[in-house]
């Protein structure tokens, strides 16, 4: 197995691992806030559940990039690029980094914004629409990094 393939694989793993860590932490902490609200006002369950789930998308984006990368380097198709050179492997590695790094950081900040928005819903359930927009803004940057990673991974030339 070539060092290039190993690098590409490490990149693919990082995309899922780091974005997944961010999302797991974010959904967990936002879930605590949501549980607090539902303890006192069970009617708000659906609204706070949506807010809790928002930081979970980064993990899905990371998984998507991992699938595309694994597919391109042949791991998923059963014919791995065992002769991949170092530079190509490095390109795959860096192509996975946007969603890995931005996914982790954006999930952290989106979770904090979601918690603040859960506070809005707790006090003013009728303002759910506005409350939803604040954490959704953070999603923009996770989507941008997802696009960057997908564009990079799908356009790396393979020999």
């Amino acid at each position, binding site marked *: 197995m070539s060092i290039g393939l190993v690098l590409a694989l490490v990149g693919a793993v990082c995309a899922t691992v780091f974005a997944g860590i961010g999302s797991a932490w974010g959904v967990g902490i936002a879930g605590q*806030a949501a549980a*607090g*609200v539902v303890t006192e006002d069970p009617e708000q369950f659906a609204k706070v559940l949506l807010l809790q789930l928002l930081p979970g998308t980064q993990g899905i984006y990371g998984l998507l990039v991992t699938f595309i990368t694994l597919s391109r380097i042949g791991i998923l198709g059963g014919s791995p690029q065992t002769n991949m050179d170092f530079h190509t492997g490095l390109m795959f590695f860096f192509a996975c980094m946007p969603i890995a790094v931005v996914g982790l950081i954006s999930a952290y900040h989106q979770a904090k914004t979601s*918690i603040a928005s859960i*506070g809005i819903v*707790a*006090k003013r359930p009728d303002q759910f629409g506005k409350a939803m927009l604040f954490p959704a803004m953070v999603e923009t940057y996770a989507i941008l990094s997802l696009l960057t990673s997908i564009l990079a991974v799908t356009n790396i030339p393979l020999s």
Partner: protein
Amino acid sequence: MGDLNYVYAVGRIRVKEKSLLSDSDIGQMIGLKDEAAVISYLQDKGWGSQDSGKDPDRILSAEEAKAWGLMVELGIAPSVFEVLSYPHLYHNLKAGIKEICTGGGGSRAFYKDEKYGRDEMLRILKEKDYDALPEHMRAAAKKAYGIMLETKDGQLCDVAVDRACLDAMEHVSRTTKHEIIRDYEESTVAVTDIKIAVRGAATGKSQNFLKEALAPCRSFDVGALALSAAGGPEVLRDFLSTHEFPEAAEALRTSPSAFERWCDNRVIETIRPQKTNPFSLGPVVAYYLARENEIKTVRIILTAKANGFTEEAIRERTREMYV
């Protein structure tokens, strides 16, 4: 990350805040005909418990128990509330010393406290078992008890205990890791110093007496406060006007009850930013303090209604609400 340890508690508190009494609720209660009407209003708002009936004391006790019960349920460290209970603890110390030395007082002079209620406080003082007290109280207890036994001067005893209480609170405000506790204790020490200065000015206390009574505080120079209080009420009002407390000076010009109202409102102002803080212990402690303030205000209204006060007189005595 520490700020995120309380997100569940803050979530619950956000919902609970909706049921706090607002200024408009207080206005409506003041406008009601009598005590019975106020009790009905409170019961419509869910105040009291099944067995509290129409008894004002039992309704208020039930509300105190609910507020404390919620804190226990949320798993907030008791040490946080120990700090908030310093004034009650030191009050019980004063009440205990006076009961032993003068025979007066009785159980109504004490605050209820699981650990340092009347019986335990009297035992500690009689047996001179000061080690059973929290560390910050030991020296003050010994000193105040000694003063009372030697001089029988209740005022000197009060000064020693109150000063120790303020010093303990000031120490907490410097060392706590919780911003809300720091701000609350700092604000309480400043307001209490001003109260002491106002009383000292009104009764013609000397500068030395006031220096002994006032605790160091970061909001102003207590030496200057003592000097102005020794100069009389007018000099003290000028001092307050020029040291970030013009509302206190204005309240003093209005009436003593307006000044007391300002003191409590100032503390509520300190905790009000917690209404929009989604993290940390702040909103939880602020809610508890808001409940205490609410119960205190309702007690004032009920007592005033029972004694036939005018609406204007009650309004002057009621506090601003947190929400």
